[in-house]
């Protein structure tokens, strides 16, 4: 990422584009890359900010910058609670999704500061890079989110066998439904990759666009790259919202499915019934507010 107010003629031969992060220093045998370093810095800022906000929250809202934190927490909390039919289940998972939202949002926004990129170098690699602009980081976040979703789905379904049973519409002995069930399980695994790639690609391509436009306007780089930086603020907010709401939808499908199933089959375990496949339905549609 080349947008740096300190080093205007940074690129001699072309826009400098980094896709893979470079190690800045090594601890023992592990190289700490510039994105990990920046992730630590931003995490420290987030922890300090949210602990400070939590101490000063009052029951009756007061004016001030604290309202921004309240807006964010309220927005995601409503999404999570409204996605589940049973509100108590929803409230258990609010802290994770709110934290995830703030983490992705602030990491992406902090990646647009002029400090990031070619301005500050350690050796010859940039010192800071946005944490979400690194495929390793987003893959880790996607894996952890899907682990939370799987563990929560198994817990709410009441056992692994019942959870796997929900992939199969109708009887698993029917070969067509068996194949459909296997495909559903495979789709579940591709969700990890799609979550990771979506976030990484949006942030990395945004970086590249800013780099290209800062290179094109060589002495007027701040002016030519500014509109794209503003677009990247919007893209960062949108992508963090989408990551969180997709995680909520994956969790809500499994949990609501299990509760509807339990209500239907409370009396008998009828595996040969021809059930209608449950779709996402209206419960997720109502979870958004204008």
């Amino acid at each position, binding site marked *: 990422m080349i947008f740096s107010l300190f080093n205007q003629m940074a690129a001699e031969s072309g826009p400098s584009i980094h896709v893979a992060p470079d190690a800045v220093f090594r601890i023992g045998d592990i190289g700490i890359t510039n994105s990990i370093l920046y992730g630590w810095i931003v995490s420290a800022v987030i922890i300090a900010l949210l602990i400070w906000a939590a101490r000063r929250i009052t029951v009756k809202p007061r004016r001030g910058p604290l309202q921004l934190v309240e807006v964010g927490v309220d927005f995601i909390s409503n999404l999570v609670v409204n996605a589940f039919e049973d509100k108590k289940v929803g409230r258990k998972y609010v802290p994770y999704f709110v934290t995830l939202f703030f983490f992705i949002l602030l990491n992406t926004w902090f990646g647009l500061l002029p400090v990031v990129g070619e301005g500050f170098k350690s050796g010859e690699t940039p010192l800071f890079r946005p944490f979400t602009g690194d495929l390793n980081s987003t893959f880790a976040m996607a894996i952890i989110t899907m682990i939370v979703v799987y563990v929560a789905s198994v817990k709410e379904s009441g056992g692994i066998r019942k959870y796997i049973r929900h992939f199969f519409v109708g009887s698993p002995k029917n070969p067509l439904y068996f194949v459909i069930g296997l495909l559903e399980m495979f789709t579940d695994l591709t969700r990890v990759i799609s979550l990771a790639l979506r976030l990484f*690609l949006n942030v990395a391509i945004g970086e590249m666009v800013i780099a290209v436009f800062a290179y094109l306007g060589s002495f007027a780089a701040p002016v030519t790259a500014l509109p794209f930086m503003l677009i990247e603020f919007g893209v960062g907010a*949108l*992508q963090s919202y989408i990551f969180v*709401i*997709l995680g909520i939808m994956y969790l809500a499908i499994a949990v609501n499915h299990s509760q509807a199933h339990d209500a239907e089959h409370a009396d008998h375990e009828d595996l040969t019934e021809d059930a209608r496949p449950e779709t996402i339905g209206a419960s997720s549609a109502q979870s*958004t507010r204008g």
Partner: protein
Amino acid sequence: MNFAEAIDLTIVGKGLMVGLGFIGPAIGIGLIGGSYLKAVGRNPEAAKFFGQALVFVAIVELFGLLAFASTFIVK
């Protein structure tokens, strides 16, 4: 010089992949926007589904970005 040797087909392939790969998502996002506006025009209460429309935009956009990402896989 042999015509086939003068052109680096890898770069042509990558260019075609990225260029053609973004046609689909662009049309898809345009359709989503059009449907959203039609729905709002018919029934102004449908404006509360703006968040859902953006979710679908992101899902569609992923495939365009995958086309770009595969340029790093093709040697």
